[in-house]
């Protein structure tokens, strides 16, 4: 049976576009996708000297609050995430593991001085959610620029790629039980 995917808005109430993200993820994965309430406190993962949240600690929190141990859990947060060696990350996943997290902080057009654009934000959040879940299903980065598994280290490269897996990644995902 396909592994269920749980999607949780971790810090605060789900935004009004949460259903759009849910259906975007469901479009990419044939696995059952459902929203789960997960009101957890992210304060312990905050590193005051950087003013950012440690992505690995957020993943650990998600794992502790996972409602179903057989499922993959994807957390969506509004705070800025980092891993120690990098200035920031859009998201992080346990490679071939149960949890993944995506931050909307640097996906918002306002972060780059652009006017608010909810459609664009939702598009970016869906791509990053699918991307991090891909890693959680054991997929590495893909060289095809249009594939959702293409590495994105800046927001313009998120905009360039699609929200779907290329044929090669889709095949690899199926082989790994992601479908």
């Amino acid at each position, binding site marked *: 049976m396909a592994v269920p995917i749980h999607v949780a808005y971790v810090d605060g109430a789900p935004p009004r576009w949460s259903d759009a993200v849910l259906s975007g993820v469901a479009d990419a994965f044939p696995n059952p996708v459902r929203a789960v309430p997960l009101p957890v406190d992210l304060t312990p993962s905050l590193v005051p000297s950087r003013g950012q949240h440690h992505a690995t600690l957020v993943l650990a929190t998600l794992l502790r609050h996972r409602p179903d141990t057989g499922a993959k859990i994807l957390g969506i947060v509004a705070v800025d995430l980092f891993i*120690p*060696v*990098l200035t920031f990350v859009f998201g992080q996943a*346990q*490679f071939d593991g149960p949890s993944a997290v995506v931050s909307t902080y640097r996906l918002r057009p306002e972060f780059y001085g652009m006017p608010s654009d909810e459609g664009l934000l939702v598009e970016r959040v869906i791509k990053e959610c699918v991307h991090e879940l891909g890693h959680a299903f054991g997929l590495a*980065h893909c060289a095809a620029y249009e594939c959702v598994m293409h*590495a994105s*280290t800046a927001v313009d490269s998120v905009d360039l790629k699609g929200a779907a897996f290329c044929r090669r990644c889709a095949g690899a995902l199926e082989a790994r039980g992601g479908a």
Partner: protein
Amino acid sequence: MSERRILIVDDELSVRSSLEGWFREDGFQVESAADGQAGLRAMAHGPFDIVLLDLKMPGMDGIALQKRIREIDPRATIIILTAYASVETAVEALKLGAYDYVTKPVDPDDLANLVRNALRSRALAEENVRLKQKVSELAPAEPILAVSPKMLHVLEMVRTVAETDSSVVIRGESGTGKELLARAIHAQSARRFFPLVAVNAGSLPETLLESELFGHEKGAYTGAQYRRKGKIELADGGTLFLDEIGDVTPKTQVDLLRVLETRRFTRLGGNQEISSDFRLVCATHTNLEQLMQEGRFREDLFYRINVFSIDVPPLRERPEDILPLTAFFVEKYARAMGKPALTVSADAEAVLLGHRWPGNVRELENAVERAMVVGRGPEIGVRDLPVTAQNGAADGPQPRSLEALEKEHIGRVLGECSGNVTRAARILGIDRATLYNKLRRYGLRR
């Protein structure tokens, strides 16, 4: 495509695990180490496409570690990573050959670009090595110029033996072009698309020759800091040219015999048997049969390598080749030096023909090269030739024909008379018509 490999050396666990995850998602096979010693141990599992080094670590710091890594793998692509931005240390790291230097925390886009560029640069360097190797394999062998019946017979034997896979021994004096013939055999054989690997057994002491031939494992002896493939392994599919086979010591003769019988060997200090499919071409200036009788060359090895034997005659036994070879070398060096091709004066030709050439074709080539350097006029004259060629007769008593002596003498006198036939005839004590006849016969006038 094989998986890309990265080694991360950093004393901070959180940095190591972050980078491990980041690079694993990028499709790398990742190894990490917490300090310099562990990093050096990890290098034994190399090679790595990229080595990421923290600059400040307890014990061995990044700069010291970088030096050690370079000794183990001189082609390693090293990126220095540090929390302490310091121009001095950055410059030092770059001087030691680091690819680049970044400070933590690094922008993910910068790190991704850095790694992509480092991989591209490494791939280009590797491609460059591969292409150079390919070009040398595909380049036509240097032509062997010969008009003498003796040398034409040698070339016929080269053609015949090239089609087979038999071992060949090329015998001849120093400078007769034995390596050129070995290359011609390789270039005309079915193995021509694989490497020809040359080893000069005469120039290396026993232990170095063994290491050169069989390769060695890391730590096989003092100074063996990393694994190295031997020439036998590198010649797989191609030809191994072993020059001065007569100088090989008895121990190496035994080891060589074993490889020739089984086509298998182990690297020095190693246990793993390696096979190599190569064709052996040997060369020697010594009399192997005599060495065998004196007990200095193994009989079984002699018969194993001497399946086909080619004797290259010395240049003095084929004087017909001297002038065509001279013309060939004049053109070769004219092209290399960007000079017009000079002609060779009649008296210079006579000197060239009269010399004994103890150093054979190599000596002739050197003489022509020197003449091309010092020559000023439109033709190479006697004074442009090196002293050894001008004073060929001073080399000692030489068996030479009266004709050769006459030709050389006429050429010299004509040169001294600046080509004036009447004056030359008077000095030689013969009439002009006789001198003209002799000049025509010896080809001294064009």
